């Protein structure tokens, strides 16, 4: 005689959460769900009940940056419209030397690296759509340097944007700026980086930056 296989009932996540918070009388379980609870789901319930009692520590910024870079890559949103360019800089020279100048990958106004009065600072200006992006690379101590991004719109107004620095496709740091024009990454070691600048509407600029020793 063939025996009918018993169907396994799974208590929905929301019902399980209600059970943990308010108890059996509030969860309105069906008979099958009550049996499932008795036959094995009680262990899960105890873990959830215990977790409610203990405080939760918030995620650190690096982990949130990793999530954003993995699941919400800015490049995936508007690569077609973003301006892309390369710049390589020799850091241990005084004054710092531009090895490879800024090159436009897409049509638009060309970008050129300039040096002001400070020999340890190199600036790149780029017009990207209705924005002007100013990138500043500064040499600091102990092989480290800093990269600053200043974004203004055509009316020179401050805007909200996000600047994210990647190395080998992994997010190193991401800075979200609200109604300000300045974001800065400090303590950057020599290496190859990709800096992406995006506003709410999508990515506007992607710069490959090579910091050579």
């Amino acid at each position, binding site marked *: 005689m063939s025996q009918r296989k018993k169907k396994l009932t799974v208590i929905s996540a929301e019902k399980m959460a209600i059970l943990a918070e308010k108890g059996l009388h509030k969860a309105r379980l069906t008979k099958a769900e009550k049996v499932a609870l008795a036959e094995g789901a*009680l262990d*899960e319930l105890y*873990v959830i009940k215990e977790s409610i009692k203990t405080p939760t520590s918030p995620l650190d910024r690096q*982990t949130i940056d990793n*999530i954003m870079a993995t*699941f919400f890559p800015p490049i995936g949103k508007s690569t077609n419209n973003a301006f892309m360019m390369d710049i390589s800089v020799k850091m241990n020279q005084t004054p710092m030397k531009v090895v490879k100048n800024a090159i436009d990958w897409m049509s638009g106004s060309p970008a050129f690296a300039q040096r002001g009065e400070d020999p340890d600072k190199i600036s790149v200006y780029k017009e990207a759509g209705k924005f002007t992006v100013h990138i500043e690379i500064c040499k600091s101590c102990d092989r480290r340097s800093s990269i600053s991004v200043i974004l203004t719109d055509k009316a020179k107004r401050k805007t909200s944007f*996000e600047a994210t620095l990647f190395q080998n496709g992994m997010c190193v740091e991401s800075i979200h700026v609200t109604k300000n024009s300045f974001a800065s990454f400090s303590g950057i070691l020599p290496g190859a980086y990709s800096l992406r600048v995006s506003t*709410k509407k999508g990515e506007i600029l992607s710069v490959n930056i090579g910091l050579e020793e």
Partner: protein
Amino acid sequence: MSEDSKKEKEREKELLKGFLSGIEPKVRIFFQEYGGIIQKAVSSVGIKDRSITNNDLFMAAVENLLKDDKKSLRQFKGKCKLSTYIYTISRRCAIEHAQQRVPPGPDPDTLCAPDALVNQFGVKENKMFKIALQKCKPWEQIFIRMMFYDECSTMEILDFFGWKSENTVYSQKNKIIKKLKTYTKRLQYLQVSETCHKEKRN
């Protein structure tokens, strides 16, 4: 509902709406608020396989929240706290992810009377305990599990079932034990009579 819990509900709704909109800063705020809960849920899963790290499980749980256009969070009806809901789905996802690598061992199908009840049942009846328990109502099964196997306190049971006094717990306990004894004796009697019947036939 108190004023505080109303405000909390409103805030939850706002955070969830922001996350579902997919706007980056709002998603970021959502993870600032609930990312820690995902991490806690993931770490509650004991991993036997060394090739899986907590970080793998964490990323799998985040991916689970985002998959199918954030289906799991769209299904949330708001009848419990969003944090508890996220904890539950993240933990389930982490367990599923870990089990894909290490399948669970066979479920031990033995269920004798709990130690606390062994003295009240005879040796033969004890063997019938599992069948007798299955004959009880589902809530009675839950009660027995909580009280005798998982050793929950009277207060915990009281809260869980929504009863008002501890006396209810004790009276229910006595009723269910009495019921179980009747069932086990009846089962025992049935088994004995069946054996006799078989012997007569032979």
